[in-house]
């Protein structure tokens, strides 16, 4: 049984990592092809660093991800608190149903529905090119919001609400009670919502594809237009770099987590 388990797990891992291995290997390919390997070279990495449009797309992606995840986190945390404290059951159900819509709908439908809204409003205002950074930012905030709300809500359920009441009895305004009592106790949820929103925004292609204009390109959009023609290995080089930085981040966070767990165990003993 032990052997079956190991072999099976290894096979699935081969399946999951085969394309990534291919990408890493071919990023060092001396020839231009993405199917024939013609010797080791670093020239695609050099080319990547000299390609200003790729660097610009990378910057755009990061700016968009930071802005949209921050706005979504603030707005989402407030709305989670609001939804949580709704007294009427129907209002709560309605709010949760609406929150679930962008998660349940296929990305392509979310993308085109927002695009139609932007184009429609654009036509009414009379602007010819309504799609761009602004519309993309709105779209990213919109699809990030549910993930923030759904990661904050469980933390709110775990929080003891008598504490906030106690704070108010002792003279806090509701505003102060929120910042001094509620917010610290839901912080882990807020943080994981922020991280999720950030990575979703970083990686989104489908919704961005329908809500962006010709003037604003993010990395996934750029990759898409490149894969329409032939992919050159510099895209593989870029993806390899992204892969390595994600790997590094994950290892670091795992080590930090394991350490803090050990410390907690040590404190208990």
């Amino acid at each position: 049984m032990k052997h079956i388990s190991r072999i099976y797990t290894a096979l699935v891992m081969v399946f999951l990592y085969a394309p990534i291995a291919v990408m890493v290997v071919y990023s060092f390919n001396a020839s231009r092809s993405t199917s024939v390997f013609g010797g080791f070279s670093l020239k695609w990495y050099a080319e990547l660093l000299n390609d200003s449009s790729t660097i610009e797309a990378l910057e755009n992606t990061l700016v968009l991800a930071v802005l949209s995840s921050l706005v979504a986190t603030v707005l989402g945390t407030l709305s989670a608190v609001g939804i949580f404290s709704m007294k009427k059951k129907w209002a709560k159900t309605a709010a949760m149903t609406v929150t679930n819509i962008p998660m349940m709908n296929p990305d392509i439908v979310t993308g085109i529905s927002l695009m139609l809204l932007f184009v429609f409003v654009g036509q009414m205002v009379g602007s010819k090119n309504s799609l761009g950074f602004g519309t993309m930012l709105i779209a990213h905030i919109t699809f990030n919001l549910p993930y923030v709300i759904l990661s904050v809500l469980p933390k709110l359920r775990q929080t003891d609400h008598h504490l906030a009441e106690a704070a108010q009895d002792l003279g806090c305004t509701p505003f102060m009670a929120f910042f001094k009592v509620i917010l610290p106790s839901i912080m882990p949820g807020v943080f994981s919502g922020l991280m999720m929103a950030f990575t979703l925004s970083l990686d989104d292609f489908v919704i961005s594809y329908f809500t962006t204009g010709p003037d604003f390109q993010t990395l996934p959009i750029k990759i898409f237009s490149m894969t329409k023609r032939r992919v050159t290995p510099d895209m593989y080089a870029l993806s390899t770099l992204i892969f390595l930085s994600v790997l590094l981040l994950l290892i670091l966070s795992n080590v930090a987590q394991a350490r803090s767990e050990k410390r907690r165990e040590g404190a208990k003993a």
Partner: protein
Amino acid sequence: MNKKRTDFAQKLISAPYIVWSAIFIIVPLLMVAYYAFTDKSGAFTLDNISGLSRYAKTFGMSLLYAAEATVISLIIAYPLAYFMSNMKAGAQRMMSMLIMLPMWMNFLIRTYSWITILAKTGIINTLLSKIGIGPVQLINTPGAVVLGMVYNYLPYMVLPIYTVMVKIDKSLLEAADDLGSSPISRLRRVIFPMTVPGIISGITMVFVPSVSTFYISQKLGGGKTMLIGDVIEMQFQSSYNYNLGAAISLVLMVLILISLAVMNRFDDSEEGGILI
């Protein structure tokens, strides 16, 4: 006095989100319906909807491929989740990291890499020719499209099933053993029923993106396999027939909502709050 003020503050706090979701979630969906039932000049018409019969085959194919991909993912994911749940804590954390890691890579590049593996001069065919089997047509087939779906969305099947699997109380399994159940009946009557919520969310998370994909079919199907996502993408990005595109999206959305509603009837967990 204080209580009233608190209530008011709490109402105020969710106001921005209510406004936001009304404008950017509800109104866009109404826009889809509006475009689906109007023509280019904005007059009411049913032509877009009635013209959809032309795409019946495409709809059928998309549903079929997505269903195939979902079933295959489930078959691969279930044993994996089971094996994972029996590993040591450190190995479990390592495994869930390994399964999540590919999802952080750009999905376009990951899909594109499969071309290198499957192409006529690709890795598999090179290996096959070494042992004397002629080049096999792998790329640009329906099989390649389904493979692309399974590859991209498999983690979404593994993780929810694994999450419910680790929560199963091991003493229940021991009890089943003690009461004389065979490993098969233990799996069928104890483990399986308790993992149904995970299976259902896994199925949803694989089926919905598979049925609406357009990139995978373009790259791995070589344009021969037109899926419903491709047709929608075409209406919005090349032939600029927004009205027809909206009509197709509307039908796709309704189809998905119906299948989700049917699925959710099998799932009686309280979390969620999907109201259909």
